[in-house]
């Protein structure tokens, strides 16, 4: 009799844990996926001190990534789609963050290799996020699109959520701007932080 009550009690407790876990998990995942990273302090004109020299006869897209950010794989998948849909008038640069005091090779992750496999894209290591600071990008996946005159036309992310590839307003806006269907746009960016408040204060 005692054992029966113990078993029933344990099953009721397990049932409550089960229901609470399902609810808490949905809540936690939703919050995680839908919370964007820090918004960029985008420069309206191409930063002159940048090492990258934009082609005057091309649109120039710059994406900043953290090589260890798992959500960034989705941003790169979307970037591939953007490159394919935009055609040769788009010049693309992927800047891969690496802290200066970390040994070379730290950045060579699967994400880095995925960036290198992108067609018509230049991959550059961004030591200590210097370029990210110049452009005002703080979050992995942050994308800037500049026109032929060096004016900013798009700032934001190209995924709809953290780590979710698929058609979304951010990536479609980039394509539409290049094809002159829209003039300019912004979109939330989802990813790990490249430049943190603390590292900014130290600089």
């Amino acid at each position, binding site marked *: 009799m005692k054992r029966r009550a113990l*078993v029933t009690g*344990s*099953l009721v407790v*397990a*049932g409550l*844990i*089960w229901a*609470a*876990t*399902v609810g*808490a*998990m949905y809540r*936690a*995942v*939703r919050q*995680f*996926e*839908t919370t964007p990273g820090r918004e960029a302090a985008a420069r309206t004109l191409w930063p002159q001190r940048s090492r990258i020299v934009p082609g005057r006869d091309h649109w120039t897209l710059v994406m900043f990534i*953290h090589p*260890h*950010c*798992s*959500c960034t*794989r*989705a941003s790169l998948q979307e970037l591939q789609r953007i490159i394919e849909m935009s055609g040769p008038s788009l010049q693309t640069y992927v800047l891969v*963050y690496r*802290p200066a*005091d*970390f040994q070379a090779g730290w950045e060579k992750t699967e994400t880095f290799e995925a960036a290198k496999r992108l067609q018509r894209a230049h991959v550059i290591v961004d030591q200590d*996020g210097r370029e990210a600071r110049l452009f005002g990008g703080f979050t*992995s996946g942050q994308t800037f699109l500049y026109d032929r005159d060096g004016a900013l036309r798009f700032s934001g992310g190209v995924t*709809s*959520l953290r*780590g*979710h*590839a*698929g*058609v*979304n*307003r951010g990536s479609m806006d980039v394509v539409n701007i290049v094809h002159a269907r829209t003039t300019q746009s912004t979109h939330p960016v989802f990813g*790990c*932080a*490249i*430049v*943190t408040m*603390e*590292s900014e204060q130290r600089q």
Partner: protein
Amino acid sequence: MSEIVTEREMDARAAEIRDEQLHARHVRVDRMFTWLFLAQYVAGIIAALTVSPYAWEGKIHTIHLHVWIAVIGGAGIIILPILLSIFRPGTKLTRHVIAASQMLASALLIHLTGGRIETHFHVFGSLAFLAFYLDWTALLTATVVVAADHFLRGIFWPESVYGVANPEWWRFLEHAGWVAFEDVFLIWACVMGRREIAESAARQAQVEHLSELEQLKSAALEMAMAEMHVASA
């Protein structure tokens, strides 16, 4: 009159055999699911550690939320079905909780692998496994969980399931429709399977009855022979 009684007895015995066989099957499948839940739990943790072990802020890293979800959330999902399969094996409640939990485990694995299309096949594999119960109502529970998950996420968090922010209201029906497509065949297989078990049980009851009759005849013959021996002596 006696023939009708015998037929009723045979039917009752056939139903008894059928229920015994189904119960034994349910208990066996419950145990299989216990091992599957444990294997999926480990696989979920490995997937989280492989795909997204850390969250990064510049050069500082912390354990990624996905790892905690795999460890704590994964355990929370499997605790009830495992305890039920140990303490209430073969019951309808256990089957339905297992069906619902298995679909939740699929959703968790899909999430932990970054929403890979390939991981969605886990849902279809799981339905086939649930069909081992030969209880189509368990498939119904699993389908309702999948549909409810898509319906609710479609309302509150549409990008996570459809990739776009404003999907049509009926989009969850399209996803659940593919599950229902598989269900049609699995439910048919369940009905056929139960029918075969019932037929086999009826045959066994008949054999048992015939064997009982044979034993009675033999006993009567032996008694008659014994009486003849006594009379001749």
